[in-house]
């Protein structure tokens, strides 16, 4: 049974007025448990609208959303329970911090779940550990921290609810490369240890190629493709036409492969390309 399933999911903003706009149209998705899905698409392609449907923040104008086989809008009063199962980290989540201490801010979600003090404490500490926050941070005010640390506190606030599905909407926007790698590394570690489902919305094909197992490409309010990284990048030309770029290194390798060099066109990371290139150059013998 897929963890996330949508059938005919559509959402129209300002329905019935002149400002009517379809944000997503007829989305059918099957996402299996344990998948790490990269969600990519242009600004305005419906990515954010789609992910906000998965935890019931937006109500579909049409169609259904199933989480773990349950229609989430079957009982609208229980929609809060869905939000604990599907954790959503918004863009620039550091702006949602409000508590006096980091610890209490992270505990906001678990407390809302009605867990006991001990359980809350356990989940908060576990979540903080995942994002690399130390004990000395926990009693500080979140407003004293640096931008990157604030963001990690906000992410921990969602992880602390121990959701079955974790969705992150551009968690690295506005961070420097080191901060970006750190956060993405922590998310990967979380995914591997907890073996739950992660959806990562991103503009960066590099990041998605590096971390995701599946890619969901959104284009003009519709799902253009949902497949493995390799299968998706086989559509490189179409993806580029949409104005999305395949990773630079993939482009180089595709170019090399086209010119007859024994380099796989399905190369997504610099490390992989480096390995192939040294093999090729070494095999040929540089001394000739």
């Amino acid at each position: 049974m897929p963890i996330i399933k949508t059938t005919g999911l559509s959402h129209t903003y300002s329905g019935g007025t002149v400002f009517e706009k379809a944000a997503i149209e007829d989305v059918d998705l099957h996402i299996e448990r344990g998948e790490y899905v990269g969600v990519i698409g242009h600004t305005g392609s419906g990515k954010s609208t789609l992910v906000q449907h998965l935890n019931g923040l937006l109500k579909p104008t049409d169609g259904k959303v199933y989480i773990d086989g349950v229609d989430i809008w079957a009982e609208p009063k229980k929609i809060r329970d869905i939000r604990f199962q599907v954790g959503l980290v918004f863009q620039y989540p550091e702006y949602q911090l409000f508590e006096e201490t980091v610890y209490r801010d992270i505990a906001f979600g678990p407390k809302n779940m009605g867990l006991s003090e001990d359980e809350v404490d356990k989940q908060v500490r576990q979540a903080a550990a995942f994002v690399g926050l130390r004990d000395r941070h926990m009693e500080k005010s979140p407003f004293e921290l640096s931008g990157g640390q604030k963001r990690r506190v906000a992410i921990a606030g969602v992880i602390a609810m121990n959701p079955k599905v974790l969705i992150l909407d551009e968690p690295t926007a506005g961070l420097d490369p080191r901060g970006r790698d750190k956060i993405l590394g922590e998310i990967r570690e979380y995914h591997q240890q907890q073996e739950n489902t992660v959806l990562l919305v991103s503009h960066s094909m590099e990041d998605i190629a590096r971390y995701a197992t599946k890619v969901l490409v959104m284009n003009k309010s519709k799902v253009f493709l949902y497949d493995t990284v390799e299968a998706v990048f086989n559509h490189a030309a179409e993806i580029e036409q949409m104005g999305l770029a395949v990773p630079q290194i993939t482009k180089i390798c595709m170019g090399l492969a086209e010119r007859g060099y024994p380099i796989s066109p399905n190369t997504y990371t610099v490390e992989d390309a480096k390995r192939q290139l040294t093999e090729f150059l070494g095999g040929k013998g540089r001394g000739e």
Partner: protein
Amino acid sequence: MLKDITIGQFFPGDSPIHRLDPRTKIVLTTIYVVMLFAARNPLSLLVGVVFLVVVYPLSRLPLSLVLRSLRPIVPIVLLTAVLNMFFIDGEVKLVEWHFISISQRGVMMAVLMAVRIICLIAGTSLLTYTTSPITLTDGIERLFSPLKKIKVPVHEVAMMMTIALRFIPTLVEETDKIMSAQKARGADMESGGVMQRIRALVPILIPLFVSAFRRADDLALAMECRCYHGGEGRTRMRQMKLGAVDVWGSLLMALCFGGIIAANILGAGMVQL
């Protein structure tokens, strides 16, 4: 949700009313309001109604919109009408039952008051419907600029109004975002008692205030970077100029004003407001 809230609704267009200089519009609207209160009898109120019937089509605003804007004032209109009906005494009684007495004069007054309030709201809404908030504050600034002579900070006040208006949609959007983020963490805003609901606002208000202060800081810095130093010696990109349409507008209003004074005299024998 929050996005449905619109404040100072402005509907862009290119009608003669839209093209009126904001100063003319503000002055004419004020005159119209004074006029409505100067109208003493049904005949002169009718002149006021006719004025709206002539001017509204000129603005090319959809009728449904006009009616929608009147909806929130229905309770006030009804209340005033009912109070007038019961408490104004007259010679001809229509109903007399215990302590309740409704006179013919009372009923007339109730209707006239209702018409007056509706005209008042419809007339002033026309101003906000056809003038963008920014133009409106510009107009106010120019109209009040003589007050600068007696050290009233007219420019600063107008700038503050402009900024406040500009940031309403931004802050609404921000509130929406923060609410969604807290809801995603299981914040419950829809149930519980009064105290619980107030407490549920804390996770929204604190981030909202923090971000409002941050935006204010950023804006102040950005304005200083562009050498903003108050109103002195500042010129405008869009100069306000009075044109033919302003002359016509003023003439129409003068005509209406004359009509009301004439009607006040002519209808001296009617029910007086």
